[in-house]
């Protein structure tokens, strides 16, 4: 190989390699959701006590989801007046709260399964479509949004039959905050109470 060709070749490899190696793509987006589902099923099948399960769900949530995005979105515009200590505390309290809120419903998932049916790229993220088959219920659509914003592949929102879970939680957080007259510390305390 002559020198010129080698340089061009090396340049091309360098230019494309990072993308091939690091960029999120369809198969990585769907494999993230597949392993998320596997982990959730493993916890449910473990037959542990409920509080041990909540801790496991919280760990799964931390591992697979973009927790800082989710917390920032849920707090919404009120996040702008929060101090960094409050933001950190809120993020942590929110994780416990959400793991318990959804973990509490694990019984509905026993014997059920989630099947990945498709992936598509939307703007800078991926939409992973799945169908949930739960015992005694008609199958329904669950969509996960996955991005590598944080440097890792993580899901940052999900939709159940068109219902945006993050928007639902933002509304809920807003309602709690209203009931505390806008006091962010009181909101954090309330989330701890609920988790």
């Amino acid at each position, binding site marked *: 190989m002559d020198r010129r060709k080698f340089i061009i070749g090396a340049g091309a490899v360098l230019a494309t390699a990072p993308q091939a190696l690091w960029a999120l793509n369809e198969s990585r987006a769907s494999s993230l959701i597949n392993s998320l589902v596997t982990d959730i099923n493993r916890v449910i099948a473990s037959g542990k006590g409920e509080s041990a399960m909540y801790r496991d769900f919280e760990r799964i949530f931390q591992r697979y989801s973009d927790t800082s*995005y989710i917390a920032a979105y849920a*707090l919404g515009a009120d996040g702008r007046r929060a101090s960094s200590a409050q933001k*950190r505390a809120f993020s942590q309290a929110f994780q416990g709260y959400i793991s318990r809120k959804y973990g509490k419903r694990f019984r509905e998932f026993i014997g059920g399964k989630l099947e990945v049916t498709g992936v598509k790229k939307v703007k800078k993220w991926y939409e992973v479509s799945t169908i949930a088959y739960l015992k005694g219920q008609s199958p329904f659509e669950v969509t996960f949004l996955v991005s590598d914003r944080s440097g890792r592949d993580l899901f940052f929102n999900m939709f159940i039959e068109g219902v945006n879970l993050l928007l639902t939680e933002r509304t809920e957080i807003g309602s709690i905050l209203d009931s505390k007259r806008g006091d962010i510390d009181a909101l954090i305390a309330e989330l701890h109470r609920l988790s």
Partner: protein
Amino acid sequence: MAYMLRPHKFLFALIFAAFAAGCANQDPVARAAGEVFDPYEKTNRTVHAFNRGVDRLAFRPASKGYVAIVPAPMVTSFSHFAENLSMPGQMINALLQGDLKMAGNAFSRFVINSTVGFAGLADPASEFNVPPVDTDFGETLHVWGVGEGAYVELPFFGPSTSRDAAGIAVDFFTNPLGYVEQNTADNISIYAEIVRRMGDRGNYSDTIDSILYESADSYAQSRLIYLQNRRFELGEGEEITEIDPFELNTEGF
């Protein structure tokens, strides 16, 4: 067609629908921004408090008792029965929407389930792979171009919009089964529908309890969930509009 038999009833319903659906619609810009169009919020909240009371005192305990006492396969059967009774009406709605395929499916479902399916108690149509049909006059109005209108919470029925409320009224007054001579099918469909709803309330009790009794503002939660899900069903949910995860300031969280 059944509508022809009692034109005055149908006309009345249609005028009512046009009136209710013709009411104010949301400014498209506000809707795109994700705002909720709820000009009757005060009244709606009163109705919501009433509905919650009815649920807590009567509907929830009755439904929980129902699914606890009646074996699950029977609960499913009764639900199939109610669904089957709604098929002729759904077929007409499918025709009004110009969807011949859906009308055909509704027709096949009704014929198969009413005969082989023991008067609708079983659902062999699904085993024969007849696709499910789930439509209503609210959807017909949507297909005709009527906008969603304002959010309303109806007594007993729960969350709705002015368009869908008109749809419920029309479906109620024009159920074709109600026109068959000398039968009480009209009442049977109503009772069957109540029983079906009890089955749903009992089977999904954790989900519904968490919305009604465990959220900080159950009215706002029900409203948001209803609107998003209804738009999704009608296929008018905007493409999943999402704050770009790269644009939100997540520093500190």
